[in-house]
């Protein structure tokens, strides 16, 4: 026992002097992955998102029936072994319809997120990095759209279009919604471009574009990714809201918003019509928010203690 002590003490010393090998071998993303793996929120979010993604791609995996088979005689049946979520007022199997609704929401969420990121990253990075006129023009444009509440603007445009498919709705939401992320990217870039490593890169002969791409954006991407997760969640909610109000998707499309609109007319006597699409909607939005939070904590490399 006493002879073992010095050995373990020396082991401790060598550990302090050496760079921890596990961490040393890690790249940024494997470091993030290492942290997220330990985060329960991530696993809950991942499970839910995977489930919804599968529903969107291959709804038949979920023991659904034919979504178009709606024997009117079966209308408004309460949940049973035959119809897990009951049937809607046209006699369609409600479980099938709710599962199929995931596709619309998912599609809108992805369209909005990708368009928002594309616009916000390009404009925000240019505005923040180059400043002056570029910033002036991009920022004023963003300010104008920012002053229009997203939902109000979307209602206006969609009314003119008489609704539209998931793609159109997604584009409209993104069009009015991107200024939020633009501001985030712009301020991140402004904060990032005065960092020591940016100056150091300049003294080593890197060009402005290289610095933006290699240093400023990688350092600023964390909040953007986190925000993107929230944007997806928000877009899913916005689509449901717009559709509920009658300016989004129209019948015979399948959407949680449409289901809620119909359920609203029969509330509270057919409350289950309201409950199931609401539940799915909340779970999907919640999953993306949870993912964002887990990502936020995992990406914050600079919070790690300096040892």
């Amino acid at each position: 026992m006493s002879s073992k002590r010095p050995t373990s003490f020396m082991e401790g010393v060598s550990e302090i002097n050496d760079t921890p090998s596990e961490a040393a071998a890690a790249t940024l993303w494997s470091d993030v992955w290492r942290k997220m793996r330990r985060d329960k929120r991530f696993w809950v979010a991942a499970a839910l998102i995977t489930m919804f993604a599968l529903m969107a791609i291959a709804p038949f995996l979920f023991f659904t029936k034919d979504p178009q088979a709606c024997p009117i005689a079966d209308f408004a049946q309460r949940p049973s072994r035959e119809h897990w979520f009951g049937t809607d007022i046209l006699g369609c199997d409600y479980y099938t319809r709710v599962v199929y609704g995931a596709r619309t929401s998912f599609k809108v969420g992805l369209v909005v997120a990708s368009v928002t990121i594309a616009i916000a990253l390009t404009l925000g990075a240019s505005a923040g990095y180059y400043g002056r006129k570029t910033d002036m023009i991009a920022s004023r444009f963003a300010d104008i759209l920012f002053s229009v509440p997203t939902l109000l603007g979307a209602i206006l445009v969609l009314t003119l279009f008489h609704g539209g498919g998931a793609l159109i709705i997604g584009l409209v939401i993104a069009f009015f919604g991107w200024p939020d992320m633009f501001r985030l990217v712009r301020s991140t870039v402004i904060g990032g471009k005065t960092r020591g490593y940016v100056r150091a890169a300049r003294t080593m002969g890197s060009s402005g574009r290289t610095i933006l791409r290699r240093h400023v954006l990688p350092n600023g991407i964390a909040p953007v990714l986190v925000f993107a997760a929230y944007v997806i969640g928000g877009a899913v909610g916005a689509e449901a809201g717009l559709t509920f109000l009658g300016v989004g998707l129209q019948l015979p499309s399948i959407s949680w918003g449409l289901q809620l609109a119909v359920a609203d007319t029969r509330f509270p006597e057919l409350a289950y019509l309201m409950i199931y699409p609401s539940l799915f909607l909340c779970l999907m939005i919640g999953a993306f928010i949870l993912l964002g939070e887990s990502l936020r904590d995992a990406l914050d490399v600079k919070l790690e203690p300096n040892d």
Partner: protein
Amino acid sequence: MTDPVLEVEDLQVEFRTEEGVVKAVDGVGYALGKGEVLAVLGESGSGKTVHARAMMRILDSPPAFITNGTVRLGDMELLTLDEDDMREVRGSRVAMLFQDPHTALDPVFTVGDQLMELLRERRKMSRGQAREESLALLERVGIPDARDRLNAFPHQLSGGIAQRVMVAMAVALEPEVLLADEPTSSLDVTVQAQVLDLLGSLVAETQMSMVLITHNLAVAVGLAKRIAVMYAGRIVELGPARDVYTTPKHPYSAGLLRSIPDIQVREERLPGITGSPPNLLKLPTGCAFSPRCPLADDRCRAEVPAYVEVGTDRWSACFHPEEVQR
């Protein structure tokens, strides 16, 4: 001096701010020989860092403007180069070393990533070559377990190791001139000496020239052959390090020397330099040091003393160089 590598003449930089125009660098000039180390000594705000950044042309403009001067590097005039050519010069002919290595390294990439990026972009190396060369560079600057450090993130490194990494990056493209801006000021004292030794041996090995910017006289005397002392944007004294140290020819240098504690002498209070550093927005007429100078007379308060040769390779901007007491 035979064929200086770097020749600076009458360099002037001003900052145009809301409160007025600040002459941060006001007519700095010197020549630097091959393999020579020149220390530029001065307090905060003396313009020593600004002059180096002006030579690199990395000052943000506005507010900073280079209003006059020439910076000759070999046969090239840096101040009139266009931005693309200047980018070629940066890193490969003049490189810079910063005070705080942890802010100068990008926190999201490993040491290897950052070195390899530089080598691949500027020396057109393949991934494999760049990796080998990065490893060689880290070993050259004396980093233990260099192979492991390649995969380390900056926050996993101690200050000394991180600064060695910065040195490796600075010499990666074999520059002729290294501008070292307070390279040891953020490090522990024991580590400071190691990094200075490293810089000294690199200079001896590669015949690279170095401008060592520092506020630490001991650092300057330890490494530099010559010392330039800056005050309020000007060089007030320049000469061989030993001579400036033993027989200063400007009262400001003498004041700096007096304020170093001597271990042989127990003093109640160190003699400092009276007064406070000058406000560059409202410089006094005449010699900028005159309000704090024990030798100042009416002429000092009226006229700016010219920068003149006061001995072999000794220059001073003082009307009374011979009366200066250490």
